[in-house]
């Protein structure tokens, strides 16, 4: 990839143009996310840089919008709802999903293809269709507009991510380890928790993170399934953006960006750890 010392002028020009082009595309990717961070500290309720901000005057910046987020009951309620729904949904999809992934990876599962297709389907079907179907069906059985209904729906949406990450981890799992454990007298439950679980834990956790973020970010299904009492952060952001856009949305957005940075770092650490555990060198 490096420029050859014998490259012609045309090749040199193209080499640098290409780099600049790629730089611009990467800038396009990251720019909208970076730009909202300074904008969220705007002292005035505008969505652009005020002259004061450009001159870096201290008065032009304030924590006003963050204060609004932390002292506004509606936002706090939404945060609380998000933090109660997402972990419950994650717990459900991770516990059921890990067991199922172990069954699916054993190589003895009958009708594996069909079962896999069913379990992956929540990821394939467009959200609006899932939301419509769940709205119709959950209203029939009285789960529409309940906390439990939302948790069930979100858990179903998170299942494919758990299945995919955990089965991927199990591909590198050495089955003779469980046989060895059984040989030395450990029961299936003990083998699972003492031998298999610690080894596949990185996969389980990253599957869980995927499931968590799926629920935490989800807005289409909850718009239909939830009632006013289950308003989550994305829901409030959505209604805020649609009706009266207020600058506190930018403060929330900045906080959510920090959450995703933490998540990204955690996943990277887990991936390296998992590869080390499986005896592969980190790529």
């Amino acid at each position: 990839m490096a420029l050859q010392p014998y490259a012609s002028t045309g090749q040199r020009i193209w080499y640098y143009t290409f780099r600049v082009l790629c730089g611009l595309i990467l800038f396009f990717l990251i720019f909208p996310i970076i730009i909202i961070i300074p904008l969220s500290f705007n002292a005035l309720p505008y969505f652009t840089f005020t002259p004061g901000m450009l001159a870096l005057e201290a008065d032009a910046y304030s924590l006003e919008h963050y204060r609004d987020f932390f002292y506004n009951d509606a936002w706090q309620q939404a945060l609380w709802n998000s933090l109660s729904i997402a972990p419950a949904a994650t717990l459900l999809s991770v516990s059921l999903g890990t067991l199922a992934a172990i069954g699916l990876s054993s190589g003895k599962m009958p009708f594996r293809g069909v079962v896999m297709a069913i379990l992956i389907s929540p990821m394939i079907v467009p959200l609006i269709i899932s939301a419509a179907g769940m709205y119709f069906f959950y209203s029939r059985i009285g789960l529409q507009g309940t906390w439990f209904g939302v948790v069930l729906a979100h858990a179903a949406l998170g299942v494919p991510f758990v299945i995919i990450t955990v089965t991927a981890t199990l591909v590198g799992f050495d089955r003779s380890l469980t046989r060895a454990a059984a040989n030395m007298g450990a029961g299936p439950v003990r083998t699972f928790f003492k031998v298999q679980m610690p080894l596949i834990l990185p996969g389980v956790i990253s599957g869980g993170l995927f499931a968590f973020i799926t629920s935490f970010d989800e807005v289409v299904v909850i718009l239909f399934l939830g009632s006013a009492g289950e308003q989550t952060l994305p829901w409030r952001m959505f209604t805020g953006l649609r009706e009266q856009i207020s600058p506190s949305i930018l403060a929330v957005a900045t906080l959510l960006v920090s959450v995703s940075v933490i998540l990204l770092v955690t996943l990277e650490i887990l991936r390296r750890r998992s590869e080390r555990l499986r005896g592969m060198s980190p790529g």
Partner: protein
Amino acid sequence: MAEATANGDIAPDEHRSASGQLLAADGTPLKKSIRRSEARARLRAFLLVAPLLIFVLLSFIAPIADMLFRSVENEIVADTLPRTVEALDAWDPQTGPPPEPVYRAFYDDMLEATELKIHTRLGSRLNYEESGMSSLFRKTNERRLERFDLDQPLQPQFVDLDKDWGEVEPWAVIKTFAPRYTWGYFLQAADMRLTPGGVEMAPEFEQIYLKLFWRTILLSCTITLSCLLLGYPVAWLLSNLPARSANLLMILVLLPFWTSLLVRTSAWKVLLQEQGVINDILVYIGIVSDAGRLVMINNQTGTIIAMTHILLPFMVLPLYSVMKTIPPSYLRAAKSLGATDWTAFWRVYFPQSVPGIGAGAILVFILAIGYYITPELVGGTDGTFISNRIAFHISTSLNWGLAAALGSLLLILVLGLYWLYDRIVGIDNVKLG
């Protein structure tokens, strides 16, 4: 060992039955024992999967099945007006208004329906097919019906209540939609309608769904294409840089991927506004005048820009994983054989990256076609998708049958594309992160 070799037989005698079959340690024939243990392993695998399978079937597959069912379900007419439907069976709309027994049956049905207050629901259902039915049914209320003189013919009294009851039209609509299952919603979703006279196209001004499907597909294609144009160079750069710098640049792709969809949509909403950052910069540079600020939001441009940004990582990641497997020595070999840079790229590198293009393009297209949130927030009126219409029918117009039919059509489209994706890439090759 020597003894076994001498006998020409490795298994000692106590591990064979009289007939020469191999035996397991517990004395059962080995074949049977293996079969039993295989069956046990299968059962265990199944029992491990079963809880999740049941959970997904109940919480996800059943709702989808319910939606498919609702798109053809039409029990309300036969359930609310059972006697009328039966009486109308013998009636032919060509012969003019129905005979007296139909009115009798209708009176009995309506008396029950108005008591249960379900007649307005039937009215709104039939109103989807023929406007005016809703008000007609609302007018025919309990109070009016109780004033009828049952000893006199009922037809004139119904006509007295509303002259439409003396026409053929409302009865023909009831007769047409009497069956418990109907294709009516699907026909509506394709801008057609089921009339007493058969299937015909909807009036010109009501033909919106085919146009909307077409627009959804066209916009999704545009988004896919722009993702490809932007994603290909980046994927190429990432797969050809040394690992350390590639990993650093990868963060720029992965961070947007991991950032909440609403965060990215709100960022674009803020950036693209008339008083937003982009317009401010353009005015500052002098490309546009202060009065001529660009309208980039609440139209198709807004949808295309925001969705290209949101879906770009889904294009870059599959492209990157394919390009990573193309040995750079191929390009060097082509060049050393005399190919120019362009020929080497186009004839050697590009064909090998086609699987990545296929995977990325189908993935982005499938995701784009079902998008709801972003078009809703930045699409205005002409940048919205079919999903926005589905949502409208569920929560605003309450025409659930039509919403279900539109959803079913979209689902069929997406599943067809996934089948293609599976043929090209394999669902099992989906990688995350």
